[in-house]
């Protein structure tokens, strides 16, 4: 059984190695092979087939839409005081005709000074989402930079950052934020974002640092260095894209944390001052509402908060599963 000798020149006349390569590729083409999908596209597909995460994305999109469009439609409704109709319940079913009670002017009811709850709710959505997003961007910019530098350069820079981070993380965060906010008197949305950004970037820094620390030793970084790439190029082109995965997940989950934090602050009265509503400060009178039986005034902001946080958490989980296919 004679064995075929590998020809060094094929029919087209290409010589030597090229001919061999061409033959191999040709042989390969004859076989079925799976379509090549890019990393991000594949991740996107995986995400979309996480039914839960996709539904959450839909709900969140709805909330965002409401937050943008709602205040435009409602205008100043949120602060219109209407002493004539305090404590109106929302539109609800009842046992006696006409079976649907409530005032369609105030579909979600009014509070003790007659302000429309629906308007306040959508405006509060704007506050929560803005704070969440902006503060997280702040965390990423400050924390990401410091963490990357610390992780990459190591040495005393790293040690110093780590000690300071340990200190800050060891402190009771809420307390510190309250103390600072209280010291400033009142806070505007902008000031609040700045304060949170300055106080909260340490977790992200730590995460970024550990990523850089481990990726710094990867082989492709060594290869890049051997090719003469500058530090800057290595950081931005090589390490950063690979470090992103856990950062993205952490950032997404962090946004929900910030939103809940702002709610806590609002509840205690240390967020945006009235009449500007935030879901937190809508709850600050909860005792009054609860004992008076005006449960809708407590229910809607609480429900809004939990739903938003839940959606963001589920989306974050979906992102984690999509980007890291080690199925759990």
């Amino acid at each position, binding site marked *: 059984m004679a064995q075929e000798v590998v020809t060094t020149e094929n029919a087209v006349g290409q010589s030597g190695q090229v001919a061999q390569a061409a033959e191999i590729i040709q042989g390969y083409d004859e076989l079925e092979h799976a379509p090549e999908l890019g990393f991000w596209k594949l991740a996107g597909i995986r995400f979309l087939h996480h039914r839960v995460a996709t539904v959450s994305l839909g709900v969140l999109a709805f909330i965002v839409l409401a937050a943008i469009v709602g205040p435009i439609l409602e205008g100043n409704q949120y602060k219109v005081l209407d002493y004539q109709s305090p404590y109106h319940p929302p539109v609800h079913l009842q046992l006696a005709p006409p079976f649907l009670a409530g005032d369609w002017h105030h579909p979600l009811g009014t509070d003790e000074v007659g302000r429309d709850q629906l308007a306040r709710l959508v405006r509060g959505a704007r506050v929560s989402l803005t704070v969440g997003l902006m503060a997280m961007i702040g965390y990423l910019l400050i924390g990401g930079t410091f963490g990357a530098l610390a992780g990459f350069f190591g040495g005393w820079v790293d040690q110093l950052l780590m000690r300071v981070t340990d200190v800050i993380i060891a402190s*009771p965060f809420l307390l510190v934020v309250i103390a600072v906010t209280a010291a400033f008197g009142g806070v505007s949305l902008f000031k609040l974002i700045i304060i949170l950004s300055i106080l909260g970037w340490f977790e992200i820094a730590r995460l970024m640092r550990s990523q850089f620390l481990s990726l710094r030793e990867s082989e492709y970084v060594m290869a890049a260095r051997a090719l003469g790439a500058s530090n800057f190029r290595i950081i931005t082109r090589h390490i950063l894209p690979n470090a992103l995965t856990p950062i993205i997940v952490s950032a997404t989950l962090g946004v929900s944390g910030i939103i809940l934090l702002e709610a806590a602050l609002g509840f205690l009265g240390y967020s945006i001052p009235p009449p500007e509503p935030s879901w937190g400060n809508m709850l600050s009178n909860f005792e009054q509402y609860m004992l008076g039986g005006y449960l809708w005034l407590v229910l809607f902001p609480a429900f809004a908060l939990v739903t938003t946080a*839940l959606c963001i958490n589920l989306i974050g989980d979906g992102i984690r599963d999509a980007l890291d296919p080690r199925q759990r």
Partner: protein
Amino acid sequence: MTFYIIRRVGVGLAVILLMSVIFFALARLTPGVPFSAGENPRANQQLILNRIHRLGLDQPWYTQYPSYLRALLRGDLGDSYFYHQPVTTLLEQRVPNSVLLYGVATILAIIIGVPLGVVAATRQYSVFDAITSVISYIGFSMPSFILGIFLLTVFAVWTKISFGFGLPLAGMHTGGEDDLPDLLLHMIMPVTALAILSIAQYSRFMRASLLDVLHQDYIRTARAKGLSAFKVNFKHALRNAVIPLITIIALSAPVIVQGAIITEGIFSWPGIGQLAFQASVIRDYPVILGVVMMVAVVTIVFNLVADIAYAAVDPRIRY
């Protein structure tokens, strides 16, 4: 091993020192005059200035710091501006209450959360797993104060209206101080509000850790030896999976001393959280600093405990 401990303790002390400087500076540097809140705004300016001078508060902060440090080393945290009592006394009063609340919540969380996570991992993708996942997610998304509000509304007010019976509304005791059942009744709602988040965290984490371990090669070896599924899961897998969990638990311990500001507020529970919060508002700096320093010390101690526990449990780490 001992050298490691000594080194860690040393670093810990350094961190505490650093913290005291930072917070002291922060306290002195934030805008606002001490006593300006919580005091009679029409009080005599001169009296206030006298008091400030007497307490040495008009000196620059770096001069004030050494005396503070000296006092600190003596165990004296100063006196509260507001309560006019030594800070240490206040801490002594309040800390046990917080520990009671948070401690019970944490223990409950471990007892409930860890087995939930184990079962969810061993029955991956089952209905049980799905249900625990849902509950966990809701737990993550519901901050304790919302849950607290919810619990109060439903179980204290609505049930009282509907059924004439409800859980107590506030505080630690309604009757005498020694009434244990009364205390327990008062504890139910706040403990639940605090525990839910921890249960969600621990069960989720346990599940992830156990799943991770179950995919390892040595589990396959154990099965190839003919061990029953029970032995494989509970002897080989679990032993490895709890290692990171110990660290997590040890690191979340400091919260016990920190107290839960908002939850304590909602339930009017006289704990550290309440104290610290009020102090922050009226700028009662000795109290704020005292609380922060205490939390810092506890945190660092527990970090060390976590490391030691980890080294004890995982034979790969020996110093």
